[in-house]
């Protein structure tokens, strides 16, 4: 079989075999509904409680602050809509950023259409929210601030502690979408003054279709899923027992090796970035420097070529990445994140995101470094933009 190098872990990860085996009994012999009071369901109730405990520990929360959801998108929707509706009488300003994942961005736009006064903060050229912009945007009607913990496209880690401290001092709820960060970098919801936090299991080798919203004790937000009394009456529907067990096992495994894994992946990512910046001239690294971005994230813009072209050429070579180019999304506008950090349309269309993970090896990175420069060179040679760029030098 020809070489396959998966470098799209930010899109999703495989479910680790240990996680799958922890989940299996809950599809078959232990199928009981956790809400049923007979002893047959005791095992399921216990399994959910354990998963809740493990999930809580990783972010420094207590178990009764964790509410399982169908994933990161639901957690984001619940946090924003629930906090907005609950606090409608207190005020209507919601502050978020231009670089949120669509799950927050489109929810915020929906709230803006429904009478909320939503402010979208700009970011600096490395994708960081500026505290002074946040402070300026706050007024006495502000009820919620939502800032992504670390961006999914460019990996920039936000000044979460500073934002949390500021919001707490001013009595404003603070939500963070930590879907890319949870179980990858240290998070402490208490020390960071986080009120609401979203996560998704499939970003840390758990199954798809399960996530969680952390809701700090004492914080009230409106329910999103109405129905039965599951999740202490705050999120109805029969529990996805196997999924929840999988999430608990996955987060336990990921947090146990977080330190070692992030050191190993950072080293490989830096090798990839240094190698590409050296071997492909006229390339821009998007996002913040190593140490201020997610360990697994690399994002480049190659002057003169378009991202979908690059993805398909890489695909032929067995390398799987992603792009912020419009052509891959079916819309005509390139990534809102790349536009927010000030890239020109050409550069935003020419972006390539490579995200590393557990199975990425040094050989994989070497293979990318051998393969990518030739692809870029060949496509640049047929690009009128590249020709114009060379003339402009």
């Amino acid at each position, binding site marked *: 079989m020809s070489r396959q190098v998966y470098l799209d872990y930010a899109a999703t990860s495989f479910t680790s075999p240990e996680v799958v085996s922890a989940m299996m009994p809950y599809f078959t012999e232990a199928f009981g509904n956790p809400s049923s009071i007979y002893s047959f369901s005791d095992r399921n109730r216990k399994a959910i409680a354990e998963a809740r405990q493990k999930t809580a520990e990783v972010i420094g929360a207590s178990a009764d602050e964790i509410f399982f959801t169908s994933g990161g998108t639901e957690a984001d929707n619940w946090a924003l809509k629930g906090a907005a509706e609950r606090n409608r009488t207190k005020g209507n300003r919601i502050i978020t950023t231009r670089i949120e994942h669509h799950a927050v961005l489109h929810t915020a736009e929906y709230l803006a259409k429904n009478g909320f006064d939503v402010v979208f903060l700009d970011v600096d050229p490395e994708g960081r929210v500026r505290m002074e912009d946040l402070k300026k945007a706050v007024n006495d009607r502000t009820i919620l601030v939502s800032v992504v913990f670390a961006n999914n496209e460019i990996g920039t880690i936000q000044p979460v502690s500073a934002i949390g401290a500021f919001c707490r001092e001013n009595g404003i709820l603070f939500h963070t979408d930590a879907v890319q960060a949870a179980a990858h970098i240290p998070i402490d919801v208490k020390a960071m003054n986080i009120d609401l936090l979203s996560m998704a299991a499939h970003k840390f080798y758990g199954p798809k279709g399960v996530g969680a919203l952390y809701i700090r004790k004492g914080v009230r937000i409106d329910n999103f899923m109405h129905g039965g009394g599951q999740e202490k009456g705050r999120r109805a529907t029969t529990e996805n027992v196997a999924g929840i067990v999988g999430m608990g096992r996955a987060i336990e495994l990921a947090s146990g090796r977080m330190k070692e894994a992030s050191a190993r992946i950072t080293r490989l990512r830096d090798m990839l970035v240094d190698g590409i910046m050296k071997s492909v001239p006229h390339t821009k690294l998007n996002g913040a420097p190593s140490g201020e971005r997610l360990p697994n994230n690399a994002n480049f813009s190659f002057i003169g070529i378009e991202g979908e*072209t690059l993805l398909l050429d890489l695909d032929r070579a067995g390398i799987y990445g992603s792009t912020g*180019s419009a*052509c*891959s999304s079916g819309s005509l506008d390139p990534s809102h994140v790349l536009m927010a950090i000030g890239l020109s*349309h050409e550069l935003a269309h020419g972006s390539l995101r490579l995200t590393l993970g557990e199975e990425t090896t040094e050989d994989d990175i070497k293979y990318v470094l051998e393969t990518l420069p030739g692809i870029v060179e060949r496509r640049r040679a*047929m690009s*009128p933009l*590249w020709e114009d760029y060379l003339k402009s030098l």
Partner: protein
Amino acid sequence: MYSEKVLDHFQNPRNVGEIENPDGVGQAGNPKCGDIMKIYLRVENDIITDIKFKTFGCASAIASSSMATELVKGKTVEEAWNLTNRAVAEALDGLPPVKMHCSILAEEAIHAAINNYRRNKGLPVWEEESHEELLHHHAHHHG
């Protein structure tokens, strides 16, 4: 997502490059939309004897450029003018609906190159038909 023909023309594009001292040059597209096509023509006795292209864009933009150059090579200038984006797309065994604008760009680039040729020869330029039905989504980019 793409037909085999699109992938073939994307991976092995025909007629890539430039022509020195061309008889006509034309460009269509806009970096905002993520695609730009540049076409070079050599015309002898009203026949397009050589054609080259350079394209910045996605796979369907590159494949459309490649196919369009193949379709007009050896044709008269008028025949080349009458090449429609639909014919380019059909020759590629179809394009996904969101990528149809790529075939329009090929047609527009060829038209621009032909009119440049006509201008160089002191001939009146031909009038472009609009593609409003396909470009309404695109119009603010191409203006």
